[in-house]
């Protein structure tokens, strides 16, 4: 008798839960869709993490402890960086940016580790033959670029990320055209800084075939006043004046600072 009562009550309670489930599901599904669309909830990409971070950490991620797992992974990456374990650093930063894709600084730091620290570490590794060192350096710089690309796809208006990419193209790949392109996107982005405009002009000036565009851009900056007339800007304008054969009457009055330097220091080679 007692067992029958227990079974009846259990069945009834389960039925109530099922009915409640049927009623709440549409509301929950619509709320979830809305929260995912508003980037307030992590989408199914969380599932891709399971193979990378282990089951317990994956459960923690799903349980709403995503930032804590990201902090733990940052600690792990920091440790790996100290021991120059670059593959681990790369893997950890990939996890971090998957966990907290909105954190611009993590994209920047990850790319910096790969394109600068790892690349330099291999370049300076004297235990390797020179050809291998150069190959690995190029490879890690490319990895830095590849790491940053999805960050730019997700944050196309991020000045900080475009600046970072511009820096890599400028300093590591020495591609002035792509550097200029990213500095332009940085200056048009969400948090532009005044030097980003000058940087765009400086590297556009070095981009073959775009000298006229660079000259017009740098002259517009020059006309803004003394605050913009920095030695590099003067030097680039003088360089372009010579290349574009600007008539002397239209040339700026300042002297190329590199010429002045060479007068004082004969061994000075400029940039």
């Amino acid at each position: 008798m007692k067992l029958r009562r227990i079974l009846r009550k259990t069945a009834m309670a389960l039925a109530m839960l099922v009915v409640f489930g049927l009623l709440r599901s549409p509301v929950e599904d619509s709320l979830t869709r809305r929260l995912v669309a508003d980037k307030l909830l992590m989408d199914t990409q969380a599932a891709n993490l399971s193979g990378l971070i282990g089951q317990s950490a994956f459960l923690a991620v799903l349980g709403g402890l995503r930032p804590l797992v990201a902090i733990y992974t940052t600690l792990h990456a920091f440790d790996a960086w100290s021991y120059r374990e670059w593959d681990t650093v790369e893997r950890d930063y990939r996890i971090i940016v998957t966990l907290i894709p909105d954190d611009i600084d993590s994209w920047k730091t990850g790319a910096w580790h790969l394109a600068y620290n790892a690349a330099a570490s291999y370049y300076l590794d004297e235990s390797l033959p020179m050809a291998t060192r150069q190959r690995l350096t190029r490879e890690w710089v490319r990895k830095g670029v590849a790491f940053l690309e999805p960050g730019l796809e997700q944050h196309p208006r991020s000045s900080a990320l475009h600046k970072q990419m511009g820096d890599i193209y400028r300093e590591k790949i020495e591609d002035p055209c792509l550097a200029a392109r990213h500095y332009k996107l940085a200056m048009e982005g969400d948090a532009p800084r005044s030097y980003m405009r000058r940087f765009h002009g400086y590297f556009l000036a070095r981009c073959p075939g775009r000298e006229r565009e660079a000259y017009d851009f740098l002259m517009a900056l020059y006309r803004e006043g003394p605050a913009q007339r920095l030695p590099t800007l003067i030097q680039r304008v003088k360089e372009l004046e010579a290349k574009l054969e600007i008539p002397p009457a239209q040339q700026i009055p300042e002297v190329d600072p590199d010429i002045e330097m060479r007068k004082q220091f004969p061994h000075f080679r400029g940039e």
Partner: protein
Amino acid sequence: MPIFSPGRIWVLATSTLTQLVRMKSFYFLIVFALFVVAASNLNLLYTAAQKLRVVKDTSFGAMSIFSWLFAIAATAVLIPRDLEDRTLYTILSKPVPRLEYLLGKLAGVLLTIGIALVVMQILFTGILFLREVTVLAEERQILASHPENTEADIRTQLDLIRAQGVSWQLLYALWAIFLKAAVVAALTMLVSTFASSSLFTMIVSTIIFLVGHFHKLAAGYWIQEMGDSLVTKLLVKPVLLIIPDFRVFNVVEAVVSGQPVAMSAMLTMTGLAALYVAVYSAIALYLFIDKEF
């Protein structure tokens, strides 16, 4: 005597609060304070904004863990404890309906969690504010030392850091944590009305809580793997319907990182949590109403 008395529920809630305070549950706040202070001093090549973000992430992570763990542990022990102390017999022998007893106990747990969360929020806000002031002063000095930075540049950069500082939006995160804890507490109370021991209640509630975070994701993959057959549906659908979906309360992470959240979404979430609490309490009452002790 009124059939339903909020006054009686309040008395039961406050006595539950006293009971939980005597269990030294608020000692957790000392651990929390140490945790937040440690997080605010953590520096792993962090930028200024990241330094503030880490304080927020660790604090809200700790609040989140505390709230659901406490909701399960405290609710699981309440009815067995009352049975052990024989308080339950004293209460139920008086003209106190069983509904009021359950609601009073649940309200007591929620009151305790609410107070703990508010204290944690005050502690955390104080530490975050102090950290924000320090970080902004340091960053201003660094930026000003570089002549290429104009005043507008400095302002833009400091605004980006301020976006990670103290803001009213963080209260939404606190509210979402409380709502999740409320659902967990109501669920645990429901389990405890038919459980044989506190340990059983804790284990079952923890399992449901964990499964409730990924069952929809797992069901989707399972259906994809096994095919959308009737058998699969019959196996998967009841699990999806019976186990609550806790994922909707995970907005905390995004809110803490500075994503704006619409008030309407928070209201829907609140309504959903209230519905969970009401239905779970009703089912708990159904199981508890003629339970013999």
